[in-house]
């Protein structure tokens, strides 16, 4: 194995022998495309003309006044399909085309990555199969309808706990059998190398834009970046381009679900080092190494592990990780809706909720990644309240 496949002690390739070659081929194709002007230009054009980049960096005046902070929202919710997931889906679908794969598979939790993948596949003429846990199919029914309309085939995952992690299991099982003609379009900064690096690079457009925008409007770097962390793709997309600026503090907000002493999905706060889906990272597991069934009302955060780069950030103290509960996230959805007229996704609302807990004497300059819009969650929130 060539190259650097670890982030500190985290990451790696913990996969069956059969997947080594497909992963190495993916790595080669990724670096070839990443360094290819034509590929980058094609991707840039799609992101601009099709997906709606650059997204605004919006100064949330009412929210800032209310919380006595200075808050900019990076509006990934305004992208086509309604979340940051399209950045990665378009890029990887182009990669699939360059690798001459005709069939694309993906896993999805909230359905946002599934919709983004189905969209990219429709655009580029690829056959698309999305694995989704039974529980998620039920709680995100609208996204299932969207994917079907876009021509994707939904495979409902009945195994295990029937949520995101089980959808990843099934996608990996499909890939190991069909890799000759199938591209696995993984949606987050998880999985075996090169996925964590590749997805982070494709999402870094968030932070690259935000950096230019904040310097234009404030003539300085921000004090704090804040984003929710499930697998870690929107947060790393925002954080990574600021990595070398040590004055910029990173805060990742995990899902505390019903509370950190009850059912939750806070892998970085409560997990231990372990191996799931091909990577070594923080993992919620029992003492015998069985993966725990985790919980968050936000389907996109309902994952027992976390991207290995976050595990590394934690180990070197580069980022701080915190968690907020379902209730706090729902309160934040209402807060942003009323104050700014923006309905955020439940996932992104976790980051918003943490703003209320920040205490500073001076008003810090904050960029928050508003990773997705909240239309998909309306039923979920209503049900939670009753």
């Amino acid at each position, binding site marked *: 194995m060539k190259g650097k496949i670890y982030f500190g002690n985290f990451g790696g390739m913990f996969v069956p022998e059969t997947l080594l070659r497909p992963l190495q081929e993916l790595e080669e194709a990724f670096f070839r495309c990443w360094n290819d002007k034509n590929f980058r230009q094609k991707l840039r054009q799609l992101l601009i003309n099709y997906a709606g980049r650059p997204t605004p960096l919006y100064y949330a005046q009412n929210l800032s006044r209310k919380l006595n902070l200075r808050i900019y929202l990076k509006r990934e919710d305004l992208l086509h399909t309604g979340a940051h997931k399209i950045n990665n889906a378009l890029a990887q679908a182009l990669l699939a085309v360059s690798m001459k794969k005709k069939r694309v598979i993906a896993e999805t939790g909230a359905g946002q990555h599934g919709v983004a993948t189905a969209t990219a596949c429709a655009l580029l003429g690829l056959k698309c199969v999305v694995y989704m846990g039974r529980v998620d199919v039920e709680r995100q029914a609208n996204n299932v309808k969207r994917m079907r309309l876009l021509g994707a085939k939904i495979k409902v995952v009945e195994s295990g706990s029937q949520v995101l992690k*089980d959808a990843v299991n099934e996608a990996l099982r499909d890939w190991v059998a069909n890799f000759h003609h199938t591209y696995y379009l993984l949606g987050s900064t998880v999985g075996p190398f090169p996925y964590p690096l590749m997805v982070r690079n494709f999402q870094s457009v968030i932070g690259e834009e935000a950096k230019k925008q904040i310097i234009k409007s404030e003539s300085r770097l921000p004090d704090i970046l804040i984003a929710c962390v499930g697998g870690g793709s929107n947060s790393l997309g925002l954080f990574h381009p600021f990595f070398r600026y040590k004055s910029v503090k990173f805060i990742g907000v995990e899902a505390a679900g019903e509370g950190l002493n009850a059912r939750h999905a806070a892998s970085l706060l409560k997990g231990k080092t372990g191996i799931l889906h091909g990577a070594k990272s923080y993992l919620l597991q029992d003492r015998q190494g069985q993966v725990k069934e985790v919980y968050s009302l936000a389907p996109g955060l309902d994952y027992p592990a976390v991207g290995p780069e976050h595990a590394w950030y934690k180990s070197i103290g580069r980022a701080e990780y915190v968690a907020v509960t379902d209730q706090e996230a729902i309160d934040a959805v209402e807060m942003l809706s009323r104050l700014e007229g923006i309905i955020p996704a439940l996932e992104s609302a976790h980051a918003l909720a943490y703003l209320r807990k920040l205490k500073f004497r001076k008003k810090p300059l904050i960029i928050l990644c508003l990773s997705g819009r909240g239309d998909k969650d309306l039923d979920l929130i209503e049900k939670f309240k009753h």
Partner: protein
Amino acid sequence: MGKLRDKFKQLRQKNQKAFIPYVTFGFPTLELSKDILFTLQAAGADIIEIGMPFSDPIADGPTIQAASRIALNQGANLELLFDFLENYKKYFTIPLIIMSYYNPIYAWGIKRFFQRAKKAGLGGIIVPDLLPEEGKEFIDMARRTDVDTVFFISPNTEERRFKIIDNASRGFIYYVSVYGVTGMRRSFDKDILLRGSFIKSRIKNPLCIGFGISKSSQVKKFKQIFDGVIVGSALINEINKIYHHKNFKGKLASFVRCLNK
């Protein structure tokens, strides 16, 4: 309980090939697991592969997934498996090997795992999601405790890696017969025996084949070239069908004898 290496030496002297049944520990119950293992030994198994159930078995098809889930619900874990092996090791004349995904071993601690494995007289260990390149500490500890390690070669493994896999393996190398997960297959690649003899000419360890094998005709065919044949899902399906039967052990024994006749 013997070592894998010794077992293959004996078989070679007798010009025989290994029949290696796979069963999930704790399936269908912890108590029946014991009966199953002894029945398999009595029915002529040369080695038994004991699957340690895991919550997320990415290399396994529906049959072993379901068995793993049932076993976990029965409370199966590494602690109980080692207790079992330790208590009964003097009654096993054949090597027993554990197949476990990496996380349960990692959670235990690699050193602790191998110390316990040595005490339990474990014949060998197979980890389907560990490549030799990721297993330095694992292999070091295995050597120090004299537990055999089995790694995999796939149909798409590049020739230049055969040596790495061969050096990391002790006992045998596991040849994955098909692309995909475990579970019964109707057919296999027609060049599979050719491929087998090619790989054998490049390695020093014995080469056993597994994944998808369910019929005595397949066992017989693969024994022409390979040093051993592993049967898992077909056996678990059969156990699932007959375990509530009064004469379960007798039926299981004759099923195994038929497979390996």
